[in-house]
């Protein structure tokens, strides 16, 4: 769930926390994609991180702080059934396929179906065709991929982890969309609709002003 903590200072500023799952078959370059984004490295011997399964990134978008947690998932067919355990409570999903591999695109379609079934329209979907540096060997046509993405309410991106193309845009765009979704949810909560459910999902809106006066010893016991 999106978690909002109040910022520091007198004016209320929020900090969003988003969980994004990374789905894709074995060799589509999921790991390279996130390592390129979080460490700006590709097939590098000097990669400092011990692992590329769970990575975080701090962003500042239009003055709002965003904490992004990227959850890699095991893409092998034998682990397919475990998907729902991974993507529970996620705000976004990045579905990666290899533009030279038709099969990997079919896998993406399966995941999209499952995600929509489990999480409905609350999750922001990104379909990503990776390895556009191998354009000559392309097996998934741009029209087909973009047409499919549009039909399921997802956005389509073309990236190359090797050439560092399209990756920043992908994540920035996704964050903006997740923020919009979270803000829409806030407004819903503001209207009093499903207040308790929202709180349970981890969405908290903190409004300091009215309660600060009534808090026990709020003004004197801490700096």
């Amino acid at each position: 769930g999106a978690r909002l903590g109040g910022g520091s200072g007198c004016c209320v500023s929020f900090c969003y926390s988003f969980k994004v799952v990374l789905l894709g078959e074995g060799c589509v370059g999921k790991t390279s994609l996130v390592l390129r984004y979080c460490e700006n490295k590709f097939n590098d011997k000097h990669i400092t991180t011990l692992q590329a399964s769970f990575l975080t990134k701090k962003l500042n978008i239009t003055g709002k702080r965003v904490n992004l947690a990227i959850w890699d998932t095991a893409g092998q067919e034998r682990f397919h059934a475990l998907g729902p355990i991974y993507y529970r409570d996620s705000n976004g999903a990045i579905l990666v396929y290899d533009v030279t591999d038709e099969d990997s695109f079919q896998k993406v379609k399966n995941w999209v179906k499952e995600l929509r079934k489990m999480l409905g329209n609350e999750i922001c979907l990104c379909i990503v065709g990776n390895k556009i540096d191998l354009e000559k060997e392309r097996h998934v046509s741009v029209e087909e991929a973009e047409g499919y993405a549009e039909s399921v309410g997802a956005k389509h991106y073309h990236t190359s982890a090797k050439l560092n193309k399209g990756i920043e845009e992908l994540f920035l765009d996704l964050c903006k969309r997740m923020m919009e979704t979270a803000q829409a949810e806030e407004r819903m909560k503001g209207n009093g609709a499903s207040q308790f459910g929202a709180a349970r999902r981890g969405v908290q809106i903190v409004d300091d002003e009215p309660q600060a006066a009534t808090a026990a010893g709020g003004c004197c016991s801490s700096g």
Partner: protein
Amino acid sequence: MSQRSERRGIHVDQSELLCKKGCGYYGNAAWQGLCSKCWREEYQRARQKQIQEDWALAEKLQREEEEAAYASNQGTQPTPPNQSALAPFSKFEEKKTNEKTRKVTTVKKFFSPSSRTTPKKESHESKTPSPSISRQSSIETDRVSRDFVDFLKSLQKLGREIHKQCRVFIESMASKKDLSADELSEYVQDFYQNMSDRLLTHFKGSSERVECVMDQVEKYIMTRLYKSVFCPETTDDEKKDLATQNRIRALHWVTIQMLCVPLDEDIPEVSDSVVKAITDVIEMDSKRVPRDKLACITSCSKHIFNAIRVTKREPASADDFLPTLIYIVLKANPPRLQSNIQYITRFCNPSRLMTGEDGYYFTNLCCAVAFIEKLDAQSLNLSPEDFEHYMSGLASPSRVEEKSTWPQSSSLVSPGLTQMYHNLELLTGLGERQQQVLDGARGLQAEMEEWQESVKQQVHGIVERYPLEVRPPALPIDSENTENDRLPPPLTPQVFAG
């Protein structure tokens, strides 16, 4: 019983058999060398002392609690705004009136072993904890309570308030023992939510400070509630534990190759990390606080990542990590795995479980368990017949594979054996080197002796060649001066009278 060996000796002096108190009766090793009568007296005295100590501690704790409660009552009751701040906890208000009497009884209850064990005895006789275990855990609980009080002292007024709320909450939970596990979880989660909301208001939104306090609150509350809410009898957690345990045992034949685990256990650092990972995931069961259990899973995962990194020389992706974690769980067969997962899910502070790194590893563990439960021939790339055979124990896969991949099967030799050969080689090498050192030392010694001898001989030779000539003693300086007599006599002083 350990004293038995002493008595096995042939010679036993008569006096050794007598009671150590010297009362004249025979003593018994099981009673520390005392006779039955003296032992009973001794034991009673020790027990009495123990009980007194317990009471002293209980009273001390109670006094602290009362002081805190008194101070917070003083602080909060006269000012009406605080009452509104207390609103989320208003359901506990009515209990405030008889707070004092209840407090005494709870503390008493806490230290009397009989009331502790009875609820367990009723349903599960085998689970009655041994006195030493309950004693140990109560020490741990005391320590955590004390730490919590110490921590809250730094928060002054707010700390007293938090302490009160936690205590009231724990007491209210005691009356809810019959509720289902999900309802208990709901209560605890509501409490976390209310508490963190209030703290967020208090700290003006500094979520790091809220997290810090909430960690302490979780630690205190869950240490106190652990016994009653871990693997409660209202659930079938225990049954699931046994099922999972048997399942893992039945899958003992699953190899690293079948799971496509990217580990090379021939590398000592890898096998070392594997052992550490296994130890960590087993250790999870011994922790009481959900967050501590999570920390064990995280530590286990870090060792796995290290093993993968050493083998593959690149950072591990989920494609590598999950199969390895499954392999580790199969190897470790951690005790009460399902109970622990359920306990963490129900009672961990959700902010950690949802998005944090710990949450990611926990989710992977849940995936690993789910995979193991549903594992079939297809998920190991085996034919259904082979799978059946292996499961029933009719065939063992390692032997079949050994034949087919014999030429390049260095990886099939058990890593322990490889390690042993390696060690043996090392030992032989060390032996040789030691022999060399010894030979060298002996040579040096001989050389030294030789040298000493040669020096002695040289000295001797020189002494013989140049014998010491002793000259006659020297005469007085002017003895040879014959002119002396011719010198005028020395002047003598003259006295003038005047």
